[in-house]
């Protein structure tokens, strides 16, 4: 007996390594759902499991899955009990992540075992093909995306399904196959979609005689019936006993949900919705009536009732009838030819029918088709031809589950890797068909793949670049215009506002004031711009400069426009004893505008600037526009080079304000502080009289300035 390489186990090891590396990846709300179920099953009596609703993620899987969670929670209690707290919503410590992700990995052993059984059960000549199939299922991007990133336990559940399918291969294990499927149904009821195929297959090949459909094998019927009853009793018995069946059913089958899931599953109803969207635009031409309330709801696609604007609404009954109809077609054939391959085909087609026509189908349900179909794909080239578009479209339809940038390369590269690897391998392994192929369908599937690949590339890469998902960030209203100080703007608004503001400042700020203000603030070490503005504003409020436009208050209370022509400064005078003799003041020659054209000699008190021109806000904008400051604490403000050149302001930073000097001084200070006693504070004051970071009551000061800012805003 020859072995095939790589073996299933080897693939499992390599895949496990990758999956462990993916532990910190994005996880969907399903992660929290399952954590919450761990908490529910661990901390509540069974009676309350299906009534608990602290979290919005209530338990809505059948009892076996709840029992499964209970078992896991026993291990979790040993590992990290904090995650089992019902109230700790959205708890995701790394221990929780490790535990839950590891539980997915470990329970996937079921899948590995089932695939191993599958390869063992196949005939020697098809061993190679079975091995390829098994590895393809094991490495399926579906499991990687849904289980190991998005977070679910599909590997485990599909393991049971495959095991059940494998057991159906041999006549002697038909019973256990059926019972295993019953157990699977009690784990997750989504597999009800496949139940009709099981029902027909077991009925025909187990309960009825192979020779005649009229001869019932009562022994088998009883065995199967009691088995299934026993399983159902274990699962649902306690809840029936407590009279909770209605509650359980309402949790399992939430019919209040809409036709389409939040993300449209790529099925008939998605196309239906799409056509409806188009019809909205065509309706005026076709004179159809449009339901206005529905226009908003369809694209939103949120969980809830989906209603259509133009096309008739779909009641659940219609979806059932359609599903059942399309399932019946293959079931009839299965009934008359109950071979294993027909059976797997029927399982696949039942999955197909329910996926395409079902009510509220998840995109994840595509695995219900892909996984059973994989078992048949290598039967011959016709099957492979049908499998190829399914593999491409099915896996790509899972992409929207992961939408974060970090996981994008994983999902896309892994899927491409899988498709290239297995489509190539399958292509080599699939034998030629005994029947001729249908030319058109064959070409159609080729064309489908040819179109799909560029389309996928466009959807996942180019579209976002052109129409800008990235721009969402800039559209958030969390930017601040640095000139006006308005916040809560979008990036573009803030940018416009800043451009506008700086233009305004450039044209409005009095020319005569620019140079003196700049000279004043050059190398200032007041680090907060608000304080700097206040400081400068106070100083310049009553100080005027030649060339300024002012309003003069002439003796009789008359207000006259004028221009400051000259300024004479008189310094402060002190008597020999140090007391103040005369305060510093200035006199201004003001050339009054027409009609008088006189000149007046005035002091600062009798001059007024135009209100709008010299405001704190304007000053702030002007300073923001013309100054820069390095990032270290205590760095001086420096006038921007081009501005400084215009006004011939020296830009040579005084040596004591340079970074090196500063850090040296700081070091020295620290040294003396460490060495000296309590009076270092004053030493420091003496040596660094202007250091701005000296804020003994920093918090308070900040508060005041904030209040000031607020007040200033209110005044405005």
């Amino acid at each position, binding site marked *: 007996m020859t072995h095939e390489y790589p073996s299933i186990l080897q693939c499992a090891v390599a895949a496990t390594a990758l999956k462990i590396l993916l532990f910190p990846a994005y996880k969907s709300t399903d992660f929290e759902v399952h954590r919450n179920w761990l908490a529910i099953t661990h901390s509540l009596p069974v009676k309350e499991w299906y009534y608990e609703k602290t979290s919005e993620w209530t338990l809505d899987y059948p009892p076996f899955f709840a029992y499964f969670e209970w078992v896991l929670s026993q291990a979790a209690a040993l590992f990290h009990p904090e995650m089992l707290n019902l109230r700790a919503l959205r708890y995701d410590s790394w221990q929780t992540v490790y535990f839950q992700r590891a539980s997915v990995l470990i329970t996937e052993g079921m899948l590995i075992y089932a695939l191993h059984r599958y390869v063992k059960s196949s005939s020697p000549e098809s061993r190679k093909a079975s091995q390829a199939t098994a590895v393809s299922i094991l490495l399926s991007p579906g499991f990687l995306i849904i289980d190991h990133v998005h977070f679910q336990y599909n590997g485990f559940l599909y393991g049971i399904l495959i095991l059940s399918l494998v057991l159906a291969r041999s006549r002697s294990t038909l019973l256990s196959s059926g019972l295993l499927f019953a157990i699977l149904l009690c784990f997750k009821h989504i597999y009800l979609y496949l139940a009709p195929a099981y029902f027909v297959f077991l009925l025909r090949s187990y309960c009825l005689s192979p020779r005649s459909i009229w001869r019932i094998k009562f022994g088998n019927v009883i065995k199967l019936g009691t088995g299934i009853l026993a399983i159902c009793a274990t699962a649902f018995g306690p809840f029936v006993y407590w009279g909770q069946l209605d509650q359980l059913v309402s949790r399992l089958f939430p019919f209040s949900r809409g036709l389409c899931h939040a993300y449209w599953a790529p099925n008939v109803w998605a196309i239906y919705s799409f056509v409806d969207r188009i019809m909205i635009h065509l309706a005026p031409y076709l004179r159809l009536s449009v339901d206005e309330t529905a226009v908003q709801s369809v694209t939103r696609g949120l969980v809830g009732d989906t209603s259509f604007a133009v096309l008739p609404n779909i009641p659940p009954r219609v979806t059932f009838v359609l599903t059942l109809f399309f399932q019946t077609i293959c079931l009839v054939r299965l009934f008359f030819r109950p071979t294993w391959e027909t059976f797997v085909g029927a399982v696949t087609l039942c999955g197909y029918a329910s996926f395409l026509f079902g009510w509220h189908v998840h995109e994840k349900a595509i695995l219900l088709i892909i996984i059973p179909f994989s078992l048949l794909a290598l039967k011959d080239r016709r099957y492979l031809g049908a499998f190829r578009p399914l593999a491409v479209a099915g896996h790509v339809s899972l992409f929207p589950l992961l939408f974060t940038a970090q996981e994008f390369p*994983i999902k896309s*590269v892994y899927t491409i890797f899988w498709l290239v690897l297995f489509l190539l391998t399958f292509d080599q392994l699939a034998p030629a068909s005994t029947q001729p192929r249908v030319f058109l369908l064959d070409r159609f599937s080729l064309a489908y793949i040819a179109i799909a690949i560029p389309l996928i590339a466009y959807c996942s890469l180019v579209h976002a670049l052109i129409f800008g998902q990235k721009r969402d960030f800039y559209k958030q209203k969390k930017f601040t215009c640095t000139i006006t100080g308005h916040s809560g703007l979008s990036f573009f608004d803030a940018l416009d506002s800043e451009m506008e503001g700086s233009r305004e400042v450039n044209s409005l700020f009095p020319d005569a004031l620019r140079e003196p203000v700049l000279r004043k603030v050059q190398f200032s070490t007041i680090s907060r711009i608000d304080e700097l503005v206040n400081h400068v504003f106070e100083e310049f409020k009553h100080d005027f400069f030649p060339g300024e436009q002012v309003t003069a208050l002439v003796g009789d209370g008359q207000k006259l426009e004028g221009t400051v022509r000259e300024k004479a400064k008189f310094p402060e005078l002190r008597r020999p004893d140090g007391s103040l003799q005369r305060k510093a003041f200035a006199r201004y020659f003001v050339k009054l505008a027409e009609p008088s054209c006189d000149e007046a000699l005035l002091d600062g008190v009798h001059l007024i600037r135009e209100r709008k021109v010299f405001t704190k806000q304007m000053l702030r904008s002007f300073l923001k526009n013309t100054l820069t400051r390095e990032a270290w604490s205590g760095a001086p403000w420096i006038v921007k080079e081009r501005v400084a050149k215009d006004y011939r302001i020296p830009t040579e930073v005084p040596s004591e304000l340079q970074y090196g000097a500063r850090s040296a001084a700081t070091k020295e200070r620290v040294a003396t502080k460490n060495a000296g006693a309590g009076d270092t504070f004053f030493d420091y004051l003496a040596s660094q009289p202007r250091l701005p970071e000296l804020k003994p009551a920093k918090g308070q000061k900040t508060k005041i300035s904030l209040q000031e800012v607020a007040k200033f805003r209110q005044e405005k």
Partner: protein
Amino acid sequence: MSSPSSHRPRRRRKGDDTGSASSVEVDAVTGVSKPAFPLAAFLWPAKGSISQWAVLPLILMAVGLFRWATGFWGYSGLGKPPMHGDFEAQRHWMEITAHLPVSQCWVLAKIGSFVNPLWFALHTSRGLDDPSLKVYMRATVFCSEYFVYVPAVIVFLRHYSRLQGIGAWDYSVALTAILMQPATMLIDHGHFQYNTVMLGFVLASMSSMLAGRYLWGCVFFVAALGFKQMALFYAPAVFAYLLGTCISPRLDIPRLFKIALVTVLAFVLLFSPLLLGSLYDSYRNVPPDPSGVVQSPPLLTSIRERVTLSEKSWYFPPILQLTQSIHRILPFSRGLFEDKVPNLWCALHASGVHKLHQYAPATVQRAALAATSLSIMPPCLVILARPRRELLPWALATCAWAFFLCSYQVHEKSSLLPLLPMTVLLGGQRGLTSSTRAWIGFANVLSTWTLFPLLKKDELRVPYFVLTLLWAWLMGLPPTSLALYRGSSIANGGLRVGTRILHLSFYAAMVVWHGVEAFVPTPKGKPDLWVVLNVLVGAAGFGICYLWCLWGLVAKSEIVGIGLSRKKAKGS
């Protein structure tokens, strides 16, 4: 990539089956061949009719997935405010290169600020840990690796395996093994650095030299040096080889002249943006150092002691730039070693055999220089005397090990440098046989293990264990498999008893160390005890690796018959 190229491997594959495909094990009883280790099993289906052009993309995608997934974990300095580590350092470098007037602008940073200008807003963005920034930074490492390193590995291995007559399938196995090297993946994609770009240039240089294009070899090597000065580890061997090709088999002065010229030109080209930028700035009257923060570099000071330079002259800024960058790049102003490095000095110092801080830095520097020169002498002399292409990886590996063990200011991450030429030996003749695989695997596992204290700081424990164990398992090495050390005798290509005992005791030490490190607290007053143990074991192992590479080089060069047997005894 249509018919002409895809046909070549197919023709060569015939030679495969008859030749000694070393990753295949033939059952003595049944005569059925089977893969010798799991990596060979993974590529088993590619043995048949699948074209190499289908296998290569699959390999690249698979190793890419592991790389990207490694990036999901922590990086150097995640959430550690004062120092922030390498991730922040690289981001800050991008920020500087994108903003400052010195006209050397890094393309990556430009693209990044096109994507999201907020990441690189100078001065406001220190210590930014935005998740999308992380993705971007990871992507830059990833892309630079796939643009430089990966093509270089492919091309080099193609040349090398062709030179050594290795089949296409063994080539694929070796390629995957090299690309899955855990140490490189963990440092670049986990810890966050751009080593692979430099390593890629070195490989490109090596493959140019293999192909006989010496001038291109020089250009690529200068590029490697220009990307990361660490490539100096290889420089003596490369120099000796190039010199050797000019001397033997006959003296070739024009070639020597051309090589020298191209090297100088490449250096000029490399520094020209910096120099031109500073010239342009001085033309615009921007002082070279507006804030006056930077002190004059010591080299410049020593130049100015001899020659008078005017600060106002036109040539002053470029000289300042040059000396400043040399001062920044060559870390003579730092200590003998940083943290704990498994090399000679740190082992000497930390083990308490001999404390080194009692000597003046200059003495230690001189001692390091002497030891390094002494240890690089043998490989350089051998490659100078026998400048044969197939010896290149051996010489580079030996020389880099010598540097790593003896030189000044070495990082533990620098062990990637000797590892690379050593690991590419997998693609050579008998590269995948038990003995070579065991040695290369030993060096790789050991070196990754010495990185563990560093990786632990970055919260990279899980990827460390996953990737190291995965690689060891793929290559059929301990601790996952003992097949190499249990199996066949020397006659059938197995390992010597001495080698077996040596390797297994090292592997055992590593496993025990992990157990101790995880569960036993360090004794009081010796918080670094486990790290010191790690350093000691690592340094000893690396010393052995140096000797093995040297022995391999001497043996392959067939330079001395007597030396061969002596070295052999020493090596294994």
